[in-house]
């Protein structure tokens, strides 16, 4: 019975319209998922989602509503998923995606075969789920079904320590990679990052498919600078350190932007660090601890290039600063236009 094997855990905060759409899709009559146990982790929302969820949980017995006492942030909420899971397999979901359950039977088959990771969305890498691209793929949280036997105490500690790095769930993925687990995938996507009617501007998601500006929604004035100036790529590089095998780690680092040569990725990182983050030193320290010898050599070359390219560097930097400020202004002004 699938009911005893798989459960779903959902995260929300102040997105009532999106949540209604997802629950309608998940609890529809034609979905194979409507009888599973669904727990919703509600991060103390204030726009009416709590009452809505209480009404639904009274009607449907398989829906459980847990409301956190206070808003702990999205990353800590993701870490809570891994603490709560009880059945042999669990599938974490977000509240702003679209669903297509046509190939769900393959996932059921993979669960019966005893896979450690079942990949359910290959949108970010266009169908490729082999090792280095898989790590980038799984920055998107609903892209995989996880096995609870893989959540040992050390992985939970790693997940909790990875909270500042934007992708705490990559610690569970790294555990599977380090210990050689079985990974299987589904032929067509079950989850989709955006539906047909979503605008591209409202796609402010916490994965490596969207714009790599510092995550503007989460910046508050009282935050420590180590978090203000850490953008999604920096968080990705830091969580690559969880992979123990050095050659695999190097591959995962280079897969941050597939198809782009490594020196160009590093040059982009350095310009973003100078322009958007006021030349924050810790981003360099974090990158350096992750890189290979060869990659460190390239890094040093590009770093010195940014300083020795003379006056043109400072002029280019001023231009980029203006572009960055315009983009940031656009981002912030579109906040109220979510679906």
């Amino acid at each position, binding site marked *: 019975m699938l009911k005893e094997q798989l459960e779903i855990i959902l995260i929300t905060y102040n997105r009532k319209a999106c949540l209604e759409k997802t629950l309608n899709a998940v609890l529809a009559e034609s979905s194979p998922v409507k009888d599973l146990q669904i727990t919703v982790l509600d991060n103390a929302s204030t726009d009416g989602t709590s009452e809505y969820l209480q009404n639904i949980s009274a009607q449907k017995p398989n829906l459980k509503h847990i409301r956190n006492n206070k808003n702990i942030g999205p990353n800590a909420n993701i*870490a809570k998923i891994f603490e709560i899971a009880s059945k042999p397999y669990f599938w974490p979901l977000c509240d702003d995606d679209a669903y297509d359950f046509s190939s769900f039977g393959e996932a059921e088959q993979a669960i019966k075969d005893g896979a450690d990771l079942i990949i359910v969305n290959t949108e970010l890498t266009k169908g490729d789920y082999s090792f280095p691209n898989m790590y980038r793929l799984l920055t998107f949280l609903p892209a995989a079904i996880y096995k609870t036997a893989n959540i040992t105490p050390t992985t939970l500690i790693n997940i909790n320590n990875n909270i500042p790095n934007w992708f705490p769930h990559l610690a569970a993925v790294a555990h599977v990679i380090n210990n050689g687990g079985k990974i299987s995938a589904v032929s067509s996507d079950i989850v989709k990052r955006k539906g047909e009617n979503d605008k591209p501007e409202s796609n402010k998601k916490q994965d490596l498919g969207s714009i790599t500006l510092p995550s503007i929604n989460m910046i508050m004035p009282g935050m420590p600078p180590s978090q203000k100036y850490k953008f999604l790529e920096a968080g990705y590089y830091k969580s690559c350190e969880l992979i123990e095998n050095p050659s695999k780690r190097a591959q995962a680092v280079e897969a941050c932007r597939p198809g782009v040569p490594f020196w160009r990725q590093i040059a982009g990182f350095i310009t973003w660090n100078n322009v958007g983050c006021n030349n924050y030193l810790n981003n360099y320290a974090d990158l350096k601890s992750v890189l290979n010898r060869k990659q460190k050599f390239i890094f040093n070359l590009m770093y010195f290039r940014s300083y020795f390219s003379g006056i043109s560097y400072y002029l280019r930097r001023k231009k980029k600063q203006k572009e960055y400020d315009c983009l940031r202004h656009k981002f912030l002004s579109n906040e109220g236009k979510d679906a």
Partner: protein
Amino acid sequence: MLKNTLEIILITYNRKPNLEKTFKRLLAEDSPVKDLQITVLDNCSTDGTSEYLSDLSKKYKNINHIRHNRNIGGNANIARAFEIATKPYLWILADDDDFDFTDFNQVQEALLNENPALLIVAPRGQNLTLPELLRNITFLPSVIFSSALLTEETMLNIHINIPNWYPHLPPIIKAFNEEGKIITLKKDFVLINPKSDSYNIFKKLRGVFPEAKNLFTHAAYLNTISLLKPSLRKDAAENFQACKYGFFKQAFYYFKQNAVENENCLRNVISPMPYFTFSQKLRWCLAYFVFCADYIIRYRRFKKKINSYKQKYKQI
């Protein structure tokens, strides 16, 4: 009434004899604390504490027992305590400390009459300057927090600070930054147990995130100080170790300890630098050069120290 203003949250993992002692102290007839609401966050212990606590919670109505599904680690448990708080004031206790409840009226009067943002209950000294006070407050049961400090920002900062060893420092730093009312009492109500083992657990675990393994307490302290205002940060960083030496010597001993305990981790050297003033940065770099020269000349002696440390704490 103290019952409606203060609540206690206890954090345990696999320490049954110590826990029994603390509860004897807390629930004795003399103690002024036996009627308050006490919640115990049990981090999925395996040595019988869960059964002991469920029996206790049936006997006493003011004790609430919460057992997590899995062991989330000590620091995340502290962050969970902040999330659960409901009453105006919050006191977090560990399970291996001694208490001294004579003259507890001072605490009661301070909380009910003066409404402070922070009440420091174990300052371990008198007439302390800011850096000394901050260092002493890193001991978790020595502060009573007001829940007005726990805004969205501070909750985020608490969870960001889980890998840095002090997740309870952001609300304290907020009180210092905004110059809220901070009252320090003249007596220690909680006494440290010098034999506590909680800081060495990470070194024994295999497979733990290298950043967490190689980050030691002084580096974590400097990272959390980044939240302070620049004027206060200057003073706090000058004296980040508990000794009477100047900044240069403190930095030198820091690098020595880094080489022995953390395999000369470069991140520990670079990560505090953005938060220093210019003169501190200069002294830091000079101390690092002097240390490198010392290390190269006396490599053999350092190697002996490193090997003896590894035999003690790491699995080889």
